[in-house]
C-alpha cells in the first residue's frame, strides 16, 4: 500500500519536477559518471512501548547510518554501518553492520525506490548501562522511498524513506539495585529516514 501511494504520487508530479524537461548534457536523470557512492543518513523510529496512564506509550529512537553503494542500472547494492539510540529511558544503544539492496523505479529525477536492508546489530551499552555480556542479533529493515536527483552533473542526491525496522538483541547488565538482569528485546520500529547520496 505505501509503495502504491508513492508510485501514484510520483506519476502525478508536475512536469517541471521531472528531469526530462531540464537542460542536461548527459541525459535527463543520469547519475554522475561513476558507479560507487557514499550514503549518509539518519532516521527516527517509533514503536508502541506498553501503556502508561494516558494510553499506549510510545518509544522513540534515532539513528545515523553510513553505506557504501554501487549502482547497477536500476539496482543499487552496498554495505555499511550504523549507530542507534533505541530507548532513551533504558539507555539502550546499538551498533549495526548492514547490507543493502535497492531497486529504483523509472528514470526520473524523482523516482520511487524499494529497499531491503539487513544485517546484525550489537548492543554497545552507555554511560549509565554497563554491559556484562551481549550477543549480536538480526536486523531487517524493508522500506520504500523517494530518490531525488540533483540537476545533472551536480553533487548530491536526496533519499527519503519510510520503513519498518526489526532488530532483536540480547544482553546482560547490572541493575540499579545491585543485581543484574538478562534482557531479550525485539525492537519493532516504524522509521522515517533521510539521507544524502554523493
Amino acid at each position, binding site marked *: 500500500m505505501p509503495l502504491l501511494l508513492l508510485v501514484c504520487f510520483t506519476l502525478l508530479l508536475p512536469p517541471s519536477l521531472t528531469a526530462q524537461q531540464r537542460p542536461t548534457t548527459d541525459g535527463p536523470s543520469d547519475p554522475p559518471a561513476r558507479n560507487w557512492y557514499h550514503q549518509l543518513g539518519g532516521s527516527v523510529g517509533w514503536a508502541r512501548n506498553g501503556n502508561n496512564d494516558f494510553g499506549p506509550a510510545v518509544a522513540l529512537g534515532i539513528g545515523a547510518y553510513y553505506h557504501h553503494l554501487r549502482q547497477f542500472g536500476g539496482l543499487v547494492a552496498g554495505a555499511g554501518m550504523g549507530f542507534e539510540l533505541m530507548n532513551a529511558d533504558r539507555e539502550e544503544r546499538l551498533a549495526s553492520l548492514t547490507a543493502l539492496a535497492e531497486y529504483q523505479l523509472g528514470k526520473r529525477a524523482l523516482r520511487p525506490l524499494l529497499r531491503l536492508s539487513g544485517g546484525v546489530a550489537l548492543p554497545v551499552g552507555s554511560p549509565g548501562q554497563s554491559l556484562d555480556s551481549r550477543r549480536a542479533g538480526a536486523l531487517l529493515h524493508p522500506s520504500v522511498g523517494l530518490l531525488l536527483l540533483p540537476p545533472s552533473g551536480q553533487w548530491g542526491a536526496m533519499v527519503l524513506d519510510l520503513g519498518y525496522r526489526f532488530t532483536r538483541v540480547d544482553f546482560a547488565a547490572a541493575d540499579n539495585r545491585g543485581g543484574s538482569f538478562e534482557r*531479550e528485546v525485539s525492537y519493532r520500529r516504524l522509521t522515517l529516514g533521510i539521507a544524502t547520496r554523493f
Partner: protein
Amino acid sequence: MKHLLTLLCCTLLLTGCLEEECTDVVTYTAYHPVVLTAAEWRSDDFSTTVPQQVCDPSAFYVYGDILFVLDRNAGLHLIDNSDNAAPRPLKFMNIPGGVGLAVRNNILYVNQYIDLLAFDLSDPANPEFLSRTKDVFDPYTDFAANLHGTGDVTVAYTEGTETMQVDCNSPFYGRGWMMEDGIFFTADRQNLDFAMAAAGAAGGSSEQVGTGGSLARFTINRGTLYAVDESSLRTFSLANPTEPEFMGITRMPWGIETIFPYKNMLFMGANNGMHIYGIDNPLQPEYLSTFAHVLSCDPVVVQNDIAYVTMWGGADCGNRGDQLSVIDVSDPRDPRALQEIPMSNSHGLGVDGDHLFLCSGPEGLKVYDLTDDGRLGAEVHQATDFPAKDVIVLPARRELIVLGWEQAGIRQYDYDDTGRPAYAADISICN
C-alpha cells in the same frame, strides 16, 4: 501526502507490528508467604508449653505477679515478675494474631485475629482454654491486618532466591519490589518489612483487673471488655466471664489508637483528638465529647480528672511537632486545655500521684513532677539508657515496666519517692 503519512503512522502504531517486546530475566530475593488456614489457627491448640525467648514484643500487660508479653505473630509469654530484678519465664502460649489482652478475675481475654479467646489463669503456669468467640473483630484492621478474605492468614515469609521473567515495560518493574501470585519479590528485606508493617499494641486497666500500658487497645471497665480498632469500639459483656458475649459496635471517626478507662468513662486517643465516652450503661457507650487537636499520634492517661495526652508528630503522625497536653476533664462533656508543653519525642506515658513518666523514644524515659492541680512541672529525672515506647506504672510496688522501641525488648525499673528510676532487669529478646 502529509495526511497520508500521518494516517499510515497512526495505523501502524495501533497494530501489534510496532509493539516492542522486552523481557528481562532477573534474580530476586523471593518471599513466599507462610499461610495458616482458618482451620489451623482455630484448632484451639495453644500447647507450646516450653517458655520461649521474647522476639518481637508488641504489647504488654500486668496482672498480679504475672507479666504478659505479646510476641507479634507468635504468641503470648507469661512471665513470673514477682521479683522484677529476676523475671522468670513461666509459659509460652501459641496464639499467633494476638494484639490486645486484658485480665479480670483470673480470666485472660486475648484476641486471635478476628476471634476473642478466654483462658482460666487459676494456675498461671498452665492456663486452661475456656472459649472462643468467633468473628467479633474485622479483618484488615489492627487486630487482623494480615488476614485474607478466606480466613487464612499470612504469619511469616520464607526467604529464597528466584529467577523470573519480567516485562521491562511493566510499570512495577524497577521499583525495588513487586508482588505476584502472593509472592513478594524484592532486592531489599526492608521493603518487605515496610509492606508488612502491622500495628499492634495492647493493654488496659481498671477496677480489679490488671494494668496495661497507655497504648492499649483492650481494656476492662465495669465488668465489660472494650476493644478499639482504627474506627470502632467493640463491647463484650463479661456477665458470663468464661464466654464473653459480643454486644455491638460503636462506630467512631477514623484514627482511633488507644483506650484508657477512668471512672465510668472511656478515653480514646485518636490521631485527631481525644474522645470521651460514658459507660453509665456499660453495654451502650455514650459519646460525651471530643478534645480536638492537630494530626498526631497520642495515647492518653487520666488521673484526678486531669487527662495527659502526648501528641507525637513524627513519621506517619502528621509531622506537626510534638507536645504534651494537660486537659481538665472534670466536666467530661466540656474538656478544657490547661497546658500545652512542647516536647521533643513523646510517646507512651503513665502517672503515679505527683509524677508523670513519659516515654521519649531514643531519649529514654523522662520523669516530670506534677503540681497540686495536676499541671506538668519540671523534668526531674531521665533514664537515657533505653529507647522507651510505652510504660506500665505499678504504684503499689513502685515499679516501672518499659516497652522498648522496635526490638529493644523490655526494661524494668524501681522508682523512689522522687520518681527516680533505678534499673532492675531486662527481658532480652531473641536475635
